[in-house]
């Protein structure tokens, strides 16, 4: 136990912190949905956020690219520091932030456009004009999201013709096309079958080479399989955070253990 802890501490010091969360509180109307959360999220690692429905895990990662902006009557306190800047501050350039922090959503949400246009969209809104460059980047993104072989002859077809799993990989391709530094996954496999889920998981582990990844998931096996670090959330509080291995094999908190062993949740 002790050696494990020391090892964990050592490990932490080797990692480079990409996102630093300090004393974060979030209110939705009168209700506090996140309570005093502080954690470091490390560069080029996969960090999983697990917890039962309504524990605030989605709310939490949606603050990283400030999607909370669309929630009426919400209020946040504390700091989320990405590369030295608190992105919760009022003067944050949200457009620039979202270019750096990409997001893949729970349900695949391709635009009702062609496969090509779906991926090119992010580039075009970022001011890309040259068609050859755009096309090169689109193809590159499709290859990196393991979709190229399946769609290379149908780039001009509507994205809604793809299966759910393919649509989700298209959304990942669309996200990585703009080369963000961080990718947030909000339960990306919630609506997918096991085979599509396996493909997405494989992809996430592959993307870790280049991106800092934060994934919210209901599925504990998924967290155990793909993440390096895991945080357990319960009723808006972060109960435990550490190396995934430790969280799953040696949880320190009783509640974490209960959740992981399936006693509730």
């Amino acid at each position: 136990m002790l050696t494990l802890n020391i090892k964990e501490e050592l490990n932490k010091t080797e990692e480079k912190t990409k996102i630093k969360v300090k004393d974060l509180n979030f209110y939705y109307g009168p209700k506090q949905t996140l309570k005093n959360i502080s954690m470091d999220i490390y560069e080029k690692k996969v960090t999983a956020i697990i917890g039962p429905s309504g524990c605030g895990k989605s709310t939490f990662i949606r603050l990283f690219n400030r999607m909370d902006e669309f929630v009426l009557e919400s209020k946040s306190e504390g700091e989320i520091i990405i590369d030295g800047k608190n992105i919760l501050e009022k003067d944050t350039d949200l457009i620039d932030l979202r270019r750096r922090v990409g997001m893949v959503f729970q349900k695949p949400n391709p635009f009702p456009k062609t496969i090509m246009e779906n991926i090119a969209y992010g580039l075009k809104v970022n001011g890309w004009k040259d068609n050859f460059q755009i096309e090169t980047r689109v193809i590159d993104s499709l290859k990196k999201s393991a979709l190229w072989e399946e769609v290379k002859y149908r780039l001009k077809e509507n994205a809604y013709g793809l299966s759910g799993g393919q649509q989700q990989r298209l959304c990942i391709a669309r996200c990585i096309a703009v080369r963000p530094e961080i990718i947030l996954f909000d339960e990306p496999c919630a609506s997918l079958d096991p085979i599509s889920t396996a493909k997405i998981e494989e992809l996430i582990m592959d993307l870790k080479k280049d991106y800092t990844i934060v994934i919210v998931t209901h599925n504990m096996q998924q967290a155990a399989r793909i993440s390096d670090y895991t945080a357990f959330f319960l009723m808006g509080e972060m109960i435990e955070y550490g190396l995934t291995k430790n969280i799953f094999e040696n949880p320190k908190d009783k509640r974490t253990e209960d959740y992981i062993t399936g006693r509730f949740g």
Partner: protein
Amino acid sequence: MKIKTTENYKIELLFSAVSFFSLLALFLIFLTLAKESFHSIKEIGLIKMITSSEWYPTDEENPAFGMLPLITASLYVTFLSLLISIPIGTLSAVYISEFAKPKAKLFLKSFIEIISAVPSVVFGFWGIVFLVPIIQKLFDLPTGYCILTSSIVLGIMAVPIITSLCEDALNMVPSSLREASYALGAEKHTTIIRIIIPAASSGIFTAIILGAGRIIGETMVVLMLSGGSAVIPESLTDPARPITSAIASEMGETVVGSLHYSSLFTLGLILFVITVILSVLAQYISSKYSLKLGKGR
């Protein structure tokens, strides 16, 4: 259990009978129009009536039943009104659905509903008292009763239909598309122009077509404001006699069973066919639309 089943059956029968009633009414309307117009179609010929441009139905020696002036007047007025109502209707729908704060939204929506509740004869009055003198002075015309005047009023009347249907279409765009666009670093206006409006385009077209159907069938305003001359209009400021206004004003003065009487029914039949085509088109587009967004989600 058995009693319940017969009860169910009776209730089902009642409801289906009631719902088929409107279908029956539609069929009967068509039947009446077809029956009464038969006389004139047989006497003169449909093609000849539609293509000739002399409308002198009450001339005692040489009555002429050329409907081209009436049809062109209807189309002219409809087109012009749409030029007014499409930009106002669609842009206000975009504002209400995408920009307005909840309070402004509520205010605007109820205001627009009030417009649609104003009786058309009141619009006609307003046109006569307010708009006709302005148009007359502005263009230095012998009379302010003309295509332009009735088109402006009709255009205003069609705004509520177009706005509320467009707004429905915009609201139907899943918020996940909005989020996807914002998450890629798109600005709000980019998201609206490049994602939301294209995704709602079929609904917007449907709204415009239904608005056109409303305008082309509107009677009171064109009767009161168009000027009533049955000549093919050459400019915006010419007086004209659209189909609806011809039917409404002439039906009371004609002998039942005469050729004139029958030709008014032919006009009704033409109007009926145009509006049916418009609503079928609208339904076709909107069913295609729901399929498009329905797939894969």
